[in-house]
């Protein structure tokens, strides 16, 4: 005999215990350490920090461990903590121009002041599985940085007496000197928006859009960026510069009257240079798309820059023809924590609404059959549309 279903509480507890056991895997295999994840799965850690909007390598590593390596679940864990953290204040804007560069490449010029710095990159590797990684063999040591010629050293010493190694200039700024590229929008001094403290509203200004993209899903932005390259809102992009490295974070301390360095964070910045035909008011010049991401993620920074540029169609007097240009479409669907929640909530019970639909479809079918007895029908009756 049927009695109303009971036991949800115990079932949930058991499922969680099973999850914990499954997460641990074979107990014969040593448990993975947070430090191992932080040091050896550093790009996974970077992604979790970037989309979790919280720069903390240890917590991101912990989240990855708890999430069994699932990036979005780990991002979610970090976000749920971030939202409870008190805000002490806002740091000064970081200056990527002063970045301690680990990698910096430009596709628009063969050589650039400060040089092309390849850094730790998968580019140019042959994607052949490396069996030696299955052992604990030591990797080959990278060669030390080449010694600078005496002449270069002297020039550098003259240029920057206080700075031991002057930071390389931004490549797009070199174009700016000739007016060939639009200037970076000036700092208006206005308080930037905080999407985690104010609801997203439309139309969204560029700073809001960039903030949304910076914490948006890498895969979603990648697909959108890719679509602009295949003709859906073509923007003729060139990588003006990608740079990755450490920048200092500073907080202005009212009591002291000056900014105090809090530490360093690693960022990846992409300045995309795009064609622009010009308009009645503006002569032809290059325009910018901008991407900035926590940690090392060129894929995300580049995708972000492509989408940022596509979203600027209105300001540049272009035609809107493609999804990547549609701010409501892009910004409302970029957040993977929101997206995964709403997609996956479909597995929650919906039987009350389904019952209502069952009732309707049965009724429509009965009416259809009754009509069929009297007159021939040419079209099947449509079922009611499904809504969440």
């Amino acid at each position, binding site marked *: 005999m*049927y009695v109303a279903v009971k036991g949800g509480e115990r079932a949930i507890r058991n499922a969680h215990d099973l999850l914990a056991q499954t997460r641990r895997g074979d107990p014969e295999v040593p448990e993975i350490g947070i430090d191992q994840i932080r040091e050896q799965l550093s790009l996974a850690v970077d992604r979790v920090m970037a989309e979790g909007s919280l720069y903390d390598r240890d917590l991101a590593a912990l989240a990855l461990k708890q999430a069994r390596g699932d990036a979005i679940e780990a991002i979610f864990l970090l976000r749920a903590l971030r939202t409870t953290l008190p805000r002490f204040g806002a740091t000064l804007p970081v200056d990527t121009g002063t970045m301690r560069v680990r990698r910096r490449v430009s596709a628009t010029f063969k050589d650039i002041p400060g040089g092309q710095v390849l850094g730790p990159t998968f580019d140019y590797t042959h994607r052949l599985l490396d069996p030696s990684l299955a052992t604990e063999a030591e990797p080959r040591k990278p060669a030390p940085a080449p010694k600078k010629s005496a002449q270069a050293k002297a020039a550098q010493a003259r240029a920057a007496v206080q700075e031991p190694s002057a930071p390389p200039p931004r490549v797009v700024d070199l174009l700016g000197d000739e007016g060939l590229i639009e200037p970076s929008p000036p700092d208006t001094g206005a308080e930037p928006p905080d999407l985690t403290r104010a609801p997203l509203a439309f139309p969204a200004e560029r700073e809001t859009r960039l903030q949304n993209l910076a914490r948006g899903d890498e895969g979603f932005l990648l697909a959108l960026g890719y679509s602009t390259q295949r003709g859906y809102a073509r923007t003729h992009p060139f990588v003006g510069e990608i740079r990755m490295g450490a920048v200092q974070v500073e907080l202005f301390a009212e009591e002291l009257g000056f900014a105090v360095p809090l530490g360093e964070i690693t960022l990846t910045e992409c300045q995309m240079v795009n064609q622009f035909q010009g308009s009645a008011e503006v002569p032809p010049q290059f325009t910018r798309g901008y991407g900035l991401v926590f940690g090392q993620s060129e894929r995300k920074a580049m995708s972000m820059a492509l989408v940022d540029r596509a979203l600027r169609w209105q300001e540049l007097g272009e035609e809107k023809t493609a999804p990547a240009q549609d701010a409501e479409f892009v910004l409302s669907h970029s957040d993977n924590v929101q997206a995964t*929640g*709403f997609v996956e909530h479909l597995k*929650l019970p919906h039987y009350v609404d389904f*019952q209502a639909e069952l009732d309707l479809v049965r009724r429509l079918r009965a009416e259809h059959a009754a009509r069929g007895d009297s007159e021939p029908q040419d079209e099947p009756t449509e079922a009611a549309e499904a809504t969440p």
Partner: protein
Amino acid sequence: MTVMPAITYNFAYLDEQTKRMIRRAILKAIAIPGYQVPFASREMPMPYGWGTGGVQVTAAILGADDVLKVIDQGSDDTTNAVAIRGFFKATAGVATTTRTQEATVIQTRHRIPETALTAGQVLVYQVPIPEPLRFLEPRETETRKLHGLADYGLMHVKLYEDISRHGHIATTYAYPVAVAGRYVMDPSPIPKFDNPKMDDCPALQLFGAGREQRIYAIPPHTRVVSLDFEDHPFEVQRFDKPCALCGAQDVYLDEVILDDRGGRMFVCSDTDHCESRRADGHVGPLGAPPPGKGKP
């Protein structure tokens, strides 16, 4: 060795500043019945789509002496209801109940309890898509304009097209209502069977949509009218049979499949209502004796 910071949470998880922000949105929502108030929804420790809007509203209004009931599909024992009740038990330490009459705050997904609500109670709905016009117009910039102008022609055309195609309105849940003669509102995906319960309800009804960052409200004793036409008046679902367990008529029933030969039964979707009736001695056609008197 990595040292992790100690992590502590406030009463009912949210910090007081956040609660204040949510309460302000709630007050505005009560002042403008049926109007969707944008609010800075927080990431909650459960996924979007699992009731983060309802949880934030509940967290913002919960006091230490409140008694909380959580239902999903009308049941207190579905997984999500259990999880949310457990969340507030753990973070706020409030008393919980499954009895509708005993609760001061009831958080719900997809149902309104069968037992009539009373003054002083608050019903908190979890809302997936707060915008009743969303599937007619996907753009928020447009729908806000339509609400501003009280231009609900789109919705009436949709309902009219249903009638011309099917002979009646083919919306069975999340059936749109007009609140206090002004805003058309999505009542969340409750079956339209529950719509009449919203009208002139003595309890305060609050709606929270976390992912969509909206809060709206129906103050006590507000006129709530389900949209219809003079020649096609609004109708609720009717069931041919009473609840198989408690014999209740005029309640919303779940269809339970008993075997693979087409055997099925219909039972109350509101499990508390069903249990109370059975405890009072009501027995349906397939009902067991009252709990405690039969086999375990």
